[in-house]
């Protein structure tokens, strides 16, 4: 039975990852950033929101069906509104906006349920939410991605290439002189579009002959 659930989870992750990379995923993401601005690019806001509703609703209801298959009966009150808040809180802890964050958040909350005695269970999710709000905006998912990005940025600096995807700094490589120019120009609050435009602006500004020949631009 667990294998079926696990297969379903893997399937959902694959589908959602594919969605993220598709045009629909792009439309959903930019809709959040700038609803008005994205309509200039021909994205129909209403249709995109409806797409988001449909996908989310399909997933949630399908998983409810899976749940009833698992539990083998319909128990009224097995879901409460409190659980609705609870799952939302869990996603916030994990970092709103990534599947990794969702899974980490769920593991954190359920791990709390598993290990802690009854009265303490609420504490884990409550403390988790406060921790995210005051210390770790972006949640555990953000933490994981931050660590990954810092490691990647260090690799990039060492190899001397320009990589637009990294939100922390843009490293411009040097030629044999050994000069290193590191531009710390991008930071995480910059929006999806702003990210790309800012990066292009930085590379365009670096009109130095030496650096020009050595810089390798990769998107």
């Amino acid at each position, binding site marked *: *039975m667990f294998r079926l659930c696990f297969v379903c989870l893997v399937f959902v992750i694959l589908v959602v990852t594919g969605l993220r990379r598709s045009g629909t995923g792009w439309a959903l993401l930019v809709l959040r950033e700038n609803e008005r601005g994205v309509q200039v690019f021909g994205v129909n806001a209403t249709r995109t929101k409806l797409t988001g509703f449909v996908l989310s609703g399909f997933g949630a209801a399908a998983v409810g069906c899976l749940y009833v298959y698992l539990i083998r009966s319909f128990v009224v009150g097995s879901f409460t509104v409190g659980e609705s808040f609870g799952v939302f809180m869990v996603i916030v802890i994990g970092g709103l906006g990534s599947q990794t964050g969702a899974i980490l958040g769920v593991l954190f909350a359920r791990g709390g349920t598993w290990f802690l005695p009854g009265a303490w269970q609420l504490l884990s999710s409550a403390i988790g939410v406060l921790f995210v709000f005051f210390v770790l905006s972006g949640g555990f998912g953000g933490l994981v991605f931050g660590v990954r990005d810092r490691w990647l940025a260090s690799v990039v600096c060492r190899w001397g290439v320009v990589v637009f995807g990294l939100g922390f700094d843009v490293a411009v490589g040097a030629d044999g002189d050994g000069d290193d120019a590191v531009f710390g120009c991008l930071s995480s609050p910059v929006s999806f579009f702003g990210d790309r435009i800012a990066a292009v602006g930085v590379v365009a500004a670096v009109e130095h002959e030496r650096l020009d020949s050595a810089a390798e631009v990769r998107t």
Partner: protein
Amino acid sequence: MGFSRLLFAAGVVVFAIVGISIVVLTGWAGQVSLGQMGFVGVGVVVGAVAIGCWHIDLSLALMVAGVVGALVVVVVGLSALRIRGLFLVVTTLVFAIVSLHYLLNPIFFSWIPTGCIERPPLFGVIDLED
């Protein structure tokens, strides 16, 4: 791993998938929905009817439940499409409260099956009893 532990782990996986559905709607599209469990409840009821009463296969039941859930979400969210502000938050929350306590309650609606539902083998071939 004992059976109850397996059930717990499977419950965690189910929870994770609900979480991913919230990520798609709220994390990506920015449409805050506080009542996701209401839609899961809709899926639970449709699944119970489909598997328990109509005895259709799980894969088909998942599709049917998913389609019904998608329709419900669209209806709930339709009014919030054009109005700015926290309308969707309130609408989904209200839907969750109403559905979980009233609309999907067998006490009020007797067509909702209660009692044990047998598990037909998946695709008619793979048996999942353990």
